[in-house]
């Protein structure tokens, strides 16, 4: 079972007003999104990742690097990755529907898929962490002020290790959309946060998985911070009836590709 989640109980200061003005309209944010999309389609370069500098997501304004990332070759340490094992993760942590007493409320789902290196090889035995809101769109987090109900039977936190083919598997509850303070009447599309490790430290990634056909996609500046339509589509799971199980839960499949290769790093002969 999960150890008691380590919630930061301290009262955190309100974020600076500049990044959480809840007074601007969705129409204005949407216009900015459309503008950036148009700029992107006019530029020839293809982007696969989100923009650090994406003003419609107001909190990026003071937090994006203003200088170009410095290109460098990875050193030994960056070509290896931390290892996690059975000692770190209990198999029951993959089932978010059994982390508290009682059955959580909501649509029970299975989310599964493969974690792959860019060369198509599986990421084996590596840690996958997820966290999410409950069916009503509420997180168990002190700073979540949304007045939707907390579900005492749902912690919204899970972990697992990928198997020999790179597969991960979670049983959980479909999260609800929730409001946030980027602008007035701002709502996040339903999503599950994923934290991923690869075979190299530089494969480390955190992202969000979305559900197909969400009507909030076009309105959401976080999803839209990935300006390329095909790249955005890589964040959306597929409904898979083969994952759905009889009278139990519906199923979604989502594969994740990390940068980096599968080449196994070896301790130099004279190492130890």
């Amino acid at each position: 079972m999960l150890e008691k989640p380590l919630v930061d109980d301290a009262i955190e200061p309100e974020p600076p007003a500049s990044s959480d003005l809840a007074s601007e309209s969705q129409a204005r944010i949407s216009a900015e999104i459309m503008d950036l999309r148009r700029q992107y389609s006019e530029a020839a370069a293809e982007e696969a990742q989100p923009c650090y500098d994406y003003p419609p997501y107001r909190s990026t304004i003071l937090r994006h690097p203003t200088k170009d990332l410095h290109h460098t070759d990875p050193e030994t340490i960056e070509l290896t990755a931390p290892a996690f094992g059975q000692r770190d993760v209990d198999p029951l942590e993959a089932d978010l529907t059994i982390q508290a007493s009682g059955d959580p409320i909501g649509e029970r789902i299975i989310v599964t898929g493969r974690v792959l290196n860019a060369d198509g090889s599986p990421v084996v035995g590596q840690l996958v962490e997820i966290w999410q809101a409950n069916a009503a769109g509420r997180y168990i987090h002190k700073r979540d002020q949304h007045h939707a109900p907390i579900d005492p039977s749902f912690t919204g936190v899970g972990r697992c290790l990928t198997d020999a083919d790179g597969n991960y598997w979670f049983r959980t509850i479909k999260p609800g959309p929730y409001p946030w303070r980027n602008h007035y009447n701002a709502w996040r599309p339903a999503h599950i946060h994923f934290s991923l490790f690869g075979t190299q430290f530089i494969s480390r990634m955190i992202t969000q998985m979305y559900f197909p056909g969400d009507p909030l996609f076009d309105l959401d500046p976080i999803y839209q911070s990935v300006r390329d339509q095909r790249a955005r589509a890589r964040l959306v799971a597929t409904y898979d009836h083969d994952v759905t199980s009889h009278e139990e839960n519906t199923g979604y499949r989502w594969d994740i590709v990390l940068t980096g290769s599968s080449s196994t790093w070896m301790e130099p002969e004279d190492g130890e």
Partner: protein
Amino acid sequence: MSAKSLVATPGQTIGPFFGFALPYAAGDQLVPPSRRDAVRLTGLVLDGHGQPVPDAMIEIWQADVDGHLEPRPGSLRRDGYTFTGWGRASTDNTGRYSFTTVRPGPTGEGKLAFFAMAIFARGLSNRLFTRVYLPASPYAIATDRLLGSLPRDRQRTLIATEDGNELRFDVRLQGDKETVFLAFPGDAP
């Protein structure tokens, strides 16, 4: 690399609500504070106005004091003896992160020792990578593959300052003293 090359899945911000999910007990203690050669690696995460970022998460990955690297499980449930080389800390209300660890040794002849660092925060669309170098001689800095390629004021953003058993390293997301953040071959824009 094989011929096959898949496009990486996009990253997304860690968001504001990771505090109940990702941090864990002793995540920031790669070694127990009582260990004789323990050091504190600490600093602030600052935004473009120089304001602390209280909702950032920092991870480090490093060699041991002898420069050895041996990925070992046990980071999530530390036993106090196994050095796994990996740690995770979130910033506090004042934007400060802190790790208890040891100084990494150089991983090879003539190489400078550093901590590899990944940075996540609300308002940061994707993770950032940087390196935290231990203080070194001007010659060693000038001949390092990365540091030697940077102007002096940019070099400084990657080198920890040392005060006894404390190593200090601030992460500046923007501004004059913006930290050098890294891209590696294979990273797509």
